[in-house]
């Protein structure tokens, strides 16, 4: 295996303008075993600087449930970052 033993794989979902910034709504990223949703977000921000504008306004969902940025994430989890919503 090429990947470090201490790494997990996270399926990331992005929506609306976050998706436009990154260029896709679905991607995968590696994270340390004790990662939180914030760890995953910070990884994305390091790659896509424009995401930083959403630092204070995003919501996060883990495995299709609303969660918190400090929630731990596990290998294979789906972590979705949601810009401010505008349904209705």
């Amino acid at each position: 295996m090429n990947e470090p033993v201490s790494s997990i794989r996270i399926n990331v979902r992005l929506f609306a303008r976050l998706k436009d910034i990154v260029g896709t709504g679905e991607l995968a990223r590696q994270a340390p075993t004790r990662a939180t949703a914030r760890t995953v977000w910070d990884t994305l921000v390091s790659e896509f600087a424009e995401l930083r504008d959403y630092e204070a306004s995003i919501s996060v969902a883990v495995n299709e449930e609303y969660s918190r940025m400090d929630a731990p994430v596990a290998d294979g989890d789906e972590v979705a970052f949601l810009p401010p919503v505008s349904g209705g």
Partner: protein
Amino acid sequence: MSDNRPAMHTALYAVTTDTLHLETLISAVTSMPDAPLDTVGPGGITSFVGIVRNENAGRRVLRLEYEGYEPLALRVFERIGAETADRWDVRVALHHRLGTLQIGEASVMIAAASPHRADAFAACRYIIERVKQIVPIWKHEFFEGGDVWIEGATADPDDDAARQDALRVATGE
């Protein structure tokens, strides 16, 4: 379309690219398959239909494209339904459309049935406020000269202040 009609007929919550039909929601909130025959039925049904407008913030809108995180949206619909049932004597339905919508088309429909019309009105109003606060759906607005993602509220279902705002609007208290 004909295939999913029977299922749609009883769906209290739906996220769909199909045209919305208010009769479907009203059927869903008035038919009570599990209720005993002597149950008192609803005295009133209040509904709300959101329509795509041709103007927003001074821009001439051409169309909207709605995107959603469907499985989470459905769970949030159920959560909002549970919030209304906790508070009012009411049975509710909530359908939201996704995809491309033209001016004048319905983006969201809500129905609330209750023995008490005050409950039906309050629940219906509460639901549209909560939809705008916490449902993971986004409007992509295409207007004359450009396009923009509309960003409203940071979604946080546990934000009690937001929930209280919705309650205040719904009950006028």
